[in-house]
């Protein structure tokens, strides 16, 4: 994109501020819009934002530096990000990436000389059932094939605007393969609030209590209790936040729920508002799902017209509630509820100190409910159908059903809903995951299951899950997975606390050392120790779970690492003396045997 003149940028930013608002909370949203317009955040934009929003320049730059989708230097006119989840890799993304960079004559992460294009990798974009996938200027392109890549190369070279790219490139499928209690007949369910109004907030909360619904985002906190605590916490205002950050590698069910049943999700948020007494809600939508933004905005405005949002909802005086959508900008940690709130407030997504918990002090220091998309959808159904209906399925501690995102080496990747208590083997049968050597349950932060564990059940008692279910077929090398996850966590650590910030980088280096065949048994023990420390001493759930995959491989698939160890060595220094001599060789122009170390 041509470096725009100061004046144009100034005008654009001033226009943004006028259109959307001057609250400091909007900083990140403004930065996202500026990035989209100019392919970076020009310094002059920082100046304008700083003076108008009253936020220091360094804080604005710090924000740009934190989020993977914001840049201080121009990216190409076409900013291409290949989704780099292990499922994308298994589907051949690396070869496609190389095909495209070669076709365009561009190196990874380097904007082409003419400013036309930049190609990089990004963390899982939530298209695992239809990968390999990429984002082009923030919009999802799915089902990549060599043919599609060739065509994309042509379109980029010809400078064709995205609006004129073939529409089928941008199609995102829902792939719902198994509907249970929540998803069956969900289309026919009322998006209205009549039942809630008939019950009243107290009885509606009672239904939720009877349902024993627990949060679907992973941690499994009882939803009714969360809402009750929030309602009873002192505060002049309260907020409802829907967590649609869905950053866990391998999950995409929230994307499908928002595409298929946005009304039910918004309805769930509105009930929550009615119960806790909130007047404002936010949907925090990960940047990777920006393609859904126009439709979601449209649904919100329709609901306003229908009297289901806004002032005096359904004619009830004083029932005022509205929902605003905030976008994320490429940060997995922003799925953690307190980091999400920081991000909603326009800051770097760094986890907050707890206590206080968000239910007591959340958005703008006010009591705030943060729930997963699926949790709000379930709450909407429960208020309609009753807590006992929901309780009818599941196990002792896990009422109801769970929606899974199934991907990897399976015949039918997509969305599957099962009652809690369903064994892993049942899911494998249904999705066609024959001969799986491992299943990664609950994402990169979850657990790696060996076949002997496939009888274990999906439930809070046994295998709690955010819904990610990635299957690794018999011919896969688990080393690829563990390398992918180690890279992911090192990239996504927020950097706040020492064990996670440094530990993830150390772990990544050790995993690479193993992969390169340079490690010894000592290094494996190091990995275990570092992992233990991260699990025990990290500040938030990202750091405490980031080494799970390494531990599981060490314990359950030891051969993955063992067979790569350097033979006959108890210890291999990380420092590679011969490599260090390369600089001296380059300077002296020598390359004879005497300029190399003898191979031990």
């Amino acid at each position, binding site marked *: 994109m041509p470096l725009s003149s100061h004046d144009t940028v100034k005008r654009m930013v001033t226009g943004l501020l006028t259109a959307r608002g001057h609250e400091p909370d909007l900083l990140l949203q403004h930065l996202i819009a500026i990035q989209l317009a100019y392919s970076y955040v020009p310094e002059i934009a920082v100046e304008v934002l700083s003076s108008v929003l009253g936020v220091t320049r360094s804080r604005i730059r710090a924000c740009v530096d934190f989020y993977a989708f914001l840049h201080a230097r121009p990216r190409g006119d076409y900013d291409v990000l290949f989704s780099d989840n292990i499922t994308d890799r298994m589907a051949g993304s690396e070869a496609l990436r190389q095909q495209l960079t070669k076709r365009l004559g561009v190196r990874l992460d380097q904007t082409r000389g003419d400013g036309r294009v930049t190609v990089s990798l990004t963390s899982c974009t939530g298209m695992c059932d239809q990968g390999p996938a990429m984002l082009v200027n923030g919009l999802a392109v799915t089902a990549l094939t060599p043919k599609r890549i060739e065509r994309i190369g042509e379109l980029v070279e010809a400078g064709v605007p995205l609006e004129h790219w073939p529409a089928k490139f941008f199609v995102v499928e829902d792939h719902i393969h198994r509907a249970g209690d929540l998803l069956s007949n969900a289309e026919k369910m009322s998006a209205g609030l009549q039942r809630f109004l008939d019950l009243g907030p107290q009885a509606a909360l009672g239904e939720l209590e009877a349902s024993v619904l627990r949060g679907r985002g992973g941690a499994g906190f009882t939803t009714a209790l969360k809402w009750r605590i929030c309602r009873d916490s002192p505060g002049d205002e309260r907020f409802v936040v829907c967590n649609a950050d869905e950053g866990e590698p391998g999950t995409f069910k929230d994307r499908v729920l928002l595409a298929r049943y946005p009304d039910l999700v918004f309805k769930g948020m509105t009930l929550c508002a009615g119960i806790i007494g909130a007047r404002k809600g936010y949907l925090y939508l990960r940047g990777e799902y920006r393609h859904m933004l126009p439709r979601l905005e449209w649904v919100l405005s329709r609901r306003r017209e229908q009297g289901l949002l806004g002032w005096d909802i359904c004619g009830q005086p004083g029932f005022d509630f509205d929902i605003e959508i905030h976008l994320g900008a490429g940060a997995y940690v922003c799925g953690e509820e307190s980091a999400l709130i920081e991000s909603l407030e326009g800051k770097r997504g760094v986890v907050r100190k707890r206590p206080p918990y968000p239910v007591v002090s959340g958005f703008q220091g006010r009591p705030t409910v943060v729930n997963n998309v699926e949790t709000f959808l379930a709450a909407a159904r429960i208020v309609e159908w009753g807590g006992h209906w929901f309780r009818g399925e599941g196990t002792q501690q896990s009422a109801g059903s769970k929606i899974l995102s199934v991907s990897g080496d399976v015949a039918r990747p997509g969305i599957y809903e099962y009652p809690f208590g369903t064994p892993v083997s049942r899911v494998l049968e249904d999705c066609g995951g024959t001969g799986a050597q491992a299943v990664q349950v609950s994402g990169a932060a979850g657990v790696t299951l060996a076949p002997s564990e496939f009888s274990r059940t999906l439930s809070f008692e046994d295998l709690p899950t955010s819904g990610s279910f990635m299957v690794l077929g018999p011919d896969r090398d688990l080393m690829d997975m563990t390398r992918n996850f180690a890279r992911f966590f090192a990239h996504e650590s927020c950097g706040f606390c020492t064990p996670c910030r440094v*530990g993830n980088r150390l772990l990544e280096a050790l995993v690479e050392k193993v992969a390169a065949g340079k490690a010894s048994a000592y290094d494996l023990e190091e990995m275990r120790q570092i992992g233990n420390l991260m699990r025990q001493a990290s*500040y938030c759930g990202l750091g405490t779970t980031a080494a799970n995959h390494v531990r599981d491989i060490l314990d359950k698939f030891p051969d993955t690492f063992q067979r790569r160890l350097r033979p006959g060595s108890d210890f291999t220094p990380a420092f590679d003396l011969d490599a260090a001599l390369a600089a001296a060789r380059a300077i002296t122009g020598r390359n004879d045997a005497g300029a190399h170390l003898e191979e031990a």
Partner: protein
Amino acid sequence: MNLANSFRLDGREIPFQPGQTLMDAALAAGAYIPHLCHNPELAPHGSCRVCVVRVGGRLVSACTAPAAAGLEVASDTPDIQASRRAILQMLFVEGNHICPACEKTGACQLQAVAYYVGMLEPHFTHFFPRRDVDASHPDYVIDFNRCILCELCVRASRDLDGKHVFAISGRGIDSRLVIESPTGKLGDSAFAATDRAAHVCPVGAILPKRGAYSVPIGQRLYDREPISQVGDVAANEGRARS
């Protein structure tokens, strides 16, 4: 002692006031829990993780965990000291800490805590990051090589000086301290030698110019007494270099 308002730290009864953290109460009772990012003048932060203690089978940071009656808190145990050692080692390899060549040696909290937990070598592979030195300010120099990201200067400048001179930028291992000024240089910022932020850095990252060796090595704060006796750098400012 009123047991309703006390907990036990390594078997020792520690009284507390409502609202205090484990760290507040321990410090008030003269019990030392090693720490780097904590300073009683500032809101607890919980980022360095050096003050982890075991409560009910879990490690928590003493500086952020609320004190509660009857808690059994373990701090000075071999496994907890080992965890702290590893955290210290991580901090050492993450930056460039060349103690013998650092003018803060002997009066550095990172070094002193490392001694306290028995750290004898850095253990992990050094990262050797490329970082700058900023000597643009007339009275102070910042050596980013030694910054441990404790955010004490960030918090002091914001909460005590009302200036916002410092911020943390980036993420993960690329996190770094930045300065609020048009050029990003300290000399062009609102920073002054009289700021509280000038006197809270636990390591040799924010240093006054002229006076580096006024106290000879060997006679410095932690050369004389261990940190468990004399406490933090910030609490000894003035004394450390007098």
